[in-house]
């Protein structure tokens, strides 16, 4: 879940009509808004994900204008918990009491439907965590949320229960409207007349739950997030180039334990990640150079690009790949991508490969056939062996010296044609196929996208079919033909 800073949470609440203590957000220390609220005020540094701000001087009460100017300058310069997005200035409202209000999700159980939970304490303010015994929890439906009238009865023992119920209705509406996972107001300020105000607030949300129209409200300062590595940036561009299918690679930032075998992984789906974690989680002698999830119907073009990115990682000694393509990815297509990546990468890795799913037998047979021609050692495993069996071979593979090779030449000149999605350039060399009959690259095409023009003796794209990026044409051209058809798959920023 992602945290939303207070000034943004206030906007969500304001949009739902929840009353807020007067406040102004300063983008810069010279923001003209700084003169709008005279002291006494509170200055609050806005830092995504920051905690315990008061203890670090990132929340201050200011009594006079001169102090306010110097405090604003100091707080903008603060870097204790990441870059300061701005300062929220709020009035020091006169309050007679403080409440605590929160909303969270209840995931339910066998005997209970999921929903929301409204949490309330009549003893809000700092230190509320230690007073959890005073917390009242009220389950509510997200489908049919409670109205103020329905909530009033829960607070009959307090003064002005109707005002509180109306306030809580607004809190629940905000929580549901923006699909928040957490919404907390602490304190809720209670004034002499019984009216209520949001004094301080925070929210958490799921990035993918936010409606397109609401995205500007949830744009957060990302500078505090983990900086991407070069390979992660390349993977991001690969995903932008061809969005279909999950292509997740994250490099391990932890230091490599002395003597550990360094393994790059290309794993499939949540199950694949879980199995790898189960197999090596308790071992200190195996270091995962990266996390990976390559699933959900990738084309072989995309698998190739992702594999090239993985092979370009600096750390690993061995590549371990498992495919589970029964749902989505044909494993023969994946094997074609693996072969291409290992022969075209300048830094191929000794590889442990297990294909599992549609056409897994053909996938394994392909790799075993091309194995002798590869610059690195490759071992394949039948699908019925799970990753735990592959791990026994890591040490042997890691004893191979990692090499830098001169990869095979890429086709040059103008391509015969290009495909936009999945993106690739097709090169045809008519001197390598002089017969009038169609070459194998045409007859293998599963979608009849490749057509043979017998008059020109040339390969052309069909207008009424599409390329699915399976790489079978190039694969069969190299294995059964004369290498007449080649595919060039550029990788953004790889070179």
């Amino acid at each position, binding site marked *: 879940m992602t945290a939303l800073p207070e000034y943004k949470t206030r906007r969500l609440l304001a949009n739902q009509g929840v009353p807020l203590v007067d406040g102004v957000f300063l983008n810069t220390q010279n923001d003209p808004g700084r003169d709008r609220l005279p002291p006494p005020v509170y200055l609050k540094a806005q830092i995504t994900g920051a905690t315990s701000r008061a203890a670090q001087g990132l929340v201050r009460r200011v009594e006079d204008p001169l102090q306010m100017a110097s405090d604003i300058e100091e707080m903008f310069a603060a870097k204790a918990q990441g870059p300061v997005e701005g300062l929220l200035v709020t009035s020091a409202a006169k309050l007679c009491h403080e409440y605590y209000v929160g909303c969270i999700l209840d995931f*339910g159980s066998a005997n209970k439907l999921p929903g929301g939970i409204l949490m309330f304490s009549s003893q809000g303010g700092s230190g509320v965590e230690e007073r959890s015994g005073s917390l009242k929890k009220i389950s509510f439906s997200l489908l049919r949320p409670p109205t103020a009238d329905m909530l009033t009865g829960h607070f009959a023992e307090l003064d002005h229960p109707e005002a509180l119920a109306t306030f809580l209705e607004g809190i629940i509406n905000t929580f*549901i409207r923006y699909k928040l996972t957490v919404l907390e107001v602490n304190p809720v300020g209670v004034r002499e007349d019984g009216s209520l105000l949001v004094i301080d607030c925070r929210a958490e949300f799921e990035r993918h739950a936010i409606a397109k129209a609401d995205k500007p409200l949830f744009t957060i300062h990302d500078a505090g997030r983990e900086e991407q590595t070069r390979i992660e940036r390349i993977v991001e561009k690969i995903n932008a180039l061809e969005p279909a299918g999950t292509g997740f690679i994250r490099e391990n930032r932890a230091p490599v334990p002395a003597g550990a075998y360094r393994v790059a992984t290309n794993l499939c789906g949540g199950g694949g*990640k*879980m199995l790898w*974690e189960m197999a090596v989680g308790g071992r200190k002698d195996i270091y995962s150079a990266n996390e990976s999830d390559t699933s*959900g119907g990738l084309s072989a073009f995309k698998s190739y690009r992702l594999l090239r990115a993985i092979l370009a990682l600096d750390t690993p000694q061995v590549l371990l790949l498992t495919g589970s393509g029964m*749902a*989505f990815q044909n494993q023969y297509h994946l094997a074609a991508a693996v072969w291409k990546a290992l022969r075209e990468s300048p830094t191929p890795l000794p590889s442990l490969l297990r294909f599992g799913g549609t056409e897994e037998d053909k996938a394994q047979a392909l790799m075993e056939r091309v194995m002798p021609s590869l610059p690195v050692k490759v071992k394949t495993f039948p699908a019925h062996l799970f990753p735990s069996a592959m791990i026994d071979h890591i040490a042997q593979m890691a004893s191979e010296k990692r090499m830098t090779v001169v990869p095979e030449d890429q086709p040059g000149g103008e391509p015969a044609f290009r495909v936009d999605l999945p993106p690739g350039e097709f090169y045809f060399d008519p001197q390598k196929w002089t017969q009038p009959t169609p070459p194998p690259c045409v007859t293998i095409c599963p979608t009849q996208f490749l057509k043979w023009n017998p008059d020109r003796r040339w390969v052309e794209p069909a207008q009424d079919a599409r390329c699915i990026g399976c790489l079978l044409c190039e694969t069969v051209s190299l294995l059964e033909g004369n290498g007449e058809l080649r595919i060039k798959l550029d990788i953004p920023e790889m070179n």
Partner: protein
Amino acid sequence: MDGILKHLADIETPNVLVFGITGKMGRNASRTMKAVGTPILAGCTPGKGGQSVDGVPVFNSAAEAVAAIPEINCAVTYVPAGAVKAAAMDAMEAGIRFLVFTADGVPIHDQIVVKEYARAKGSLYLGPNTVGMLDTTGYLFGLIGGNAEWARKNYLPGCVGIISRSGGLSQLFGAFHCRPHLSGPRPDGSFGPLWDETYPGVSAVLCIGGDPIPGVTLLDAARAFQKDPRTKVMAVYGETGTTQENDLAAAVRTGAITKPIVLFLGGKFSKAGVAQSHAGAMIRNEEESYAYKRNVLEDAGITVVQRPDAVFSHTASVLNKGA
């Protein structure tokens, strides 16, 4: 012979409406489902009513589809995550009793609303974030098998019921129980064939999905297999996060589930609060941890194996097989 839907949702013959049938994924998956034997009676894509896909009529809404074809009783959705809630409510409002949501990334709020709406309407659903279900009486909902030829070849009638929170493992657990002479680790530490050419086979494969609020839970699926006369043993993939495994253990302990269960539990090294694999695997409290779940499962008498490929020798042992 009744399929698993009879025991899950009291549906003898599924007649299916496909949401998103005009999209690439929906069209391809529908072809696979039909080729396996699933009766697809209609499609639904708002704004594309009146079209047809491979001879299947397309309607603007589930209400229109059900009005024209009252036999429709199931729906499968191939729509983006953000559109699942609307499709679900449309289908349930039209009276469709069983649904499958394949999409990954459905907002948790939407999952909760759909769960409550389904309860109110008397509907049941599989997912979200599922590869679906396959029954060896001859129907498929979702994406299991990748293509029809592969699905028919790898999922063969038998007596093992598969339940899984992972798409890949639901398929592997299913397919490997249908392979003659499958090799794997044996309880005595040796490795080799676990059975001869007479493989156990599967009754059905139910992928309940990897999200935190599944429609059909591990327990719901186990109850269906308990009632299914074909099923003699259940092979289950559970993991950290949610209380599903604990609920299953409680049902075994009280005698509501009596058929043997072999379970591989993922997440031994998962840390609390970290999304390790599936969204639903995140540990939010002690009861959702690996250690807690393993204890309650084993206390209930469920066989918890230490590696995924150990599932097969244990189901074989239950069935008194052995090469």
